[in-house]
């Protein structure tokens, strides 16, 4: 059902854990639907993501998309991190079963939610970043896949 990449990231998740006093933290999803993702970011003065950690309640795909998303944004600038779409997440995992594509949206939303929190704490506006929905399942957008 899952690709080798998904299974690898599920069995050996990268950057799993918490960051104390993070620059930004965001939580998306809901327990009702069975997946919740939390992303922690440490961003330096140059706007580069120095560290990222995640925690996820969810299926194998939810864990794997969180894990790969942290790899995709670590070391990137805030602006570059914003460009990481759910499609990039799916591609990096060599694909997801159709019913699991929504997990990749959750990963994208988790990054955005953490960046939004960072921007609010810093009192800055990140160009192109919209306020994340509190519950992405309320109006789940069509995946770009």
């Amino acid at each position, binding site marked *: 059902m*899952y690709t080798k990449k998904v299974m690898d990231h599920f069995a050996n998740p990268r950057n799993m854990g918490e960051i104390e006093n993070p620059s930004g933290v965001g*939580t998306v999803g809901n327990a*009702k639907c*069975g997946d919740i993702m939390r992303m922690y970011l440490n961003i330096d003065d140059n706007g580069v993501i120095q560290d990222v950690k995640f925690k996820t*309640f969810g*299926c*194998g795909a939810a864990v794997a998309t969180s894990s790969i998303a942290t790899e995709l944004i670590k070391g990137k600038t805030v602006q570059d991190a914003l460009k990481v779409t759910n499609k990039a997440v799916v591609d990096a995992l060599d694909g997801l079963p159709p019913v699991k594509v929504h997990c990749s949206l959750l990963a994208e939303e988790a990054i955005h939610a953490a960046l939004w929190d960072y921007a609010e704490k810093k009192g800055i506006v990140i160009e192109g970043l919209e306020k994340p929905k509190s519950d992405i399942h309320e109006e789940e957008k069509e995946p770009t896949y």
Partner: protein
Amino acid sequence: MEKKIYLDNAATTRTRPEVLEAMLPYFSDKYGNPSSVYEFASQNRKALDEARLTIANSIGAESAEIYFTGSGTEADNWALIATAEAYSSKGNHIITSKIEHHAVLHTCEYLKKRGYEITYIDVDENGIVKLDQLEKAIRPTTILISIMFANNEIGTIQPIREIGEIAKRHKILFHTDAVQAYCQVDINVDELGIDMLSASAHKLHGPKAIGFLYIKKGIKIRSFIHGGAQERGRRAGTENVPYAVGFGKAVEIAMATMKERTRKETELRDYLIKRVLAEVPYTRLNGHRTRRLPNNANFSFQFIEGESLLIMLDMNNICASSGSACTSGSLDPSHVLLAIGLPHEIAHGSLRLTLSEENTYEEIDYTVEKIKEIVDKLRKMSPLYEDFLANTIR
């Protein structure tokens, strides 16, 4: 452990070697059509009759009341649809429960679209159908009550005798889906007031793709498949002799071993339940503690999701199943777990382990150790657990 540990016997079971052996000649040498007149084919007629008699005896029925089908699901479809049609002049109301298998629930939805009215009875927190609600739901137009004998997910055994009495008192037909209960608990259709009963071979170490529907003599429901005179003209099509023979053999063994086998399974089940509840914190048992199938254990582990748990068990060669949304292909977790009142997030973290007499204490010990490790690992990854700990410490 290198060896596979199979704990999903409610999904299907290993075909017994004796069953396979009994079936094989009917794929090769004994290929005659039971409807043919010559001597060569009559041995197939005889084999079919013997299998039917074995099955009839297992539920206190007569041979003429047993109709072979292609599956338990087909038997459920037949019982519901044909009854609905045959009794449409009497009424259009069917009573069932919220925790039935989809073979019944989706057939009810099909009938609803065709003008039938369906009442879905609630269950209590242990998964037992509310009898007072059931009796109150009966109307002059009620033509059928269909309640499963035992639930496939949580193993709860229903008060079938009481339901049979209610049905009889109100002169309503009573069908029961006994796919999980057949050969696991004593069933006598007359004593229990059952008019129709569905069962399947592959849940009791028989072959897949064969089941039967018991239809009490005198019940006039229509033929399900039209054609030749097979199955008394009610389910036409050349009989699947090898599978029927395999079914008969599986029933013969299951009935002969029932007492000792279910005693062994119950002991192992109780050992498993006791260990998991004692050693994994924030865990609950789903389904009734004692009125449950001898081989069923169903747990919910708080703060984790079932599919993740299943994949990690699979990595350790343990086969199990879950009622989480991710395994059902929708966003909603199991309708059974929701019906017993579990919140969504608890329902998502469910695990069903179903045993057979082939399982050992060693396998259960290994499985419990793995469950402990995996649940702990998944909780460390869970934001729900993190929040829970933060709130508890404060």
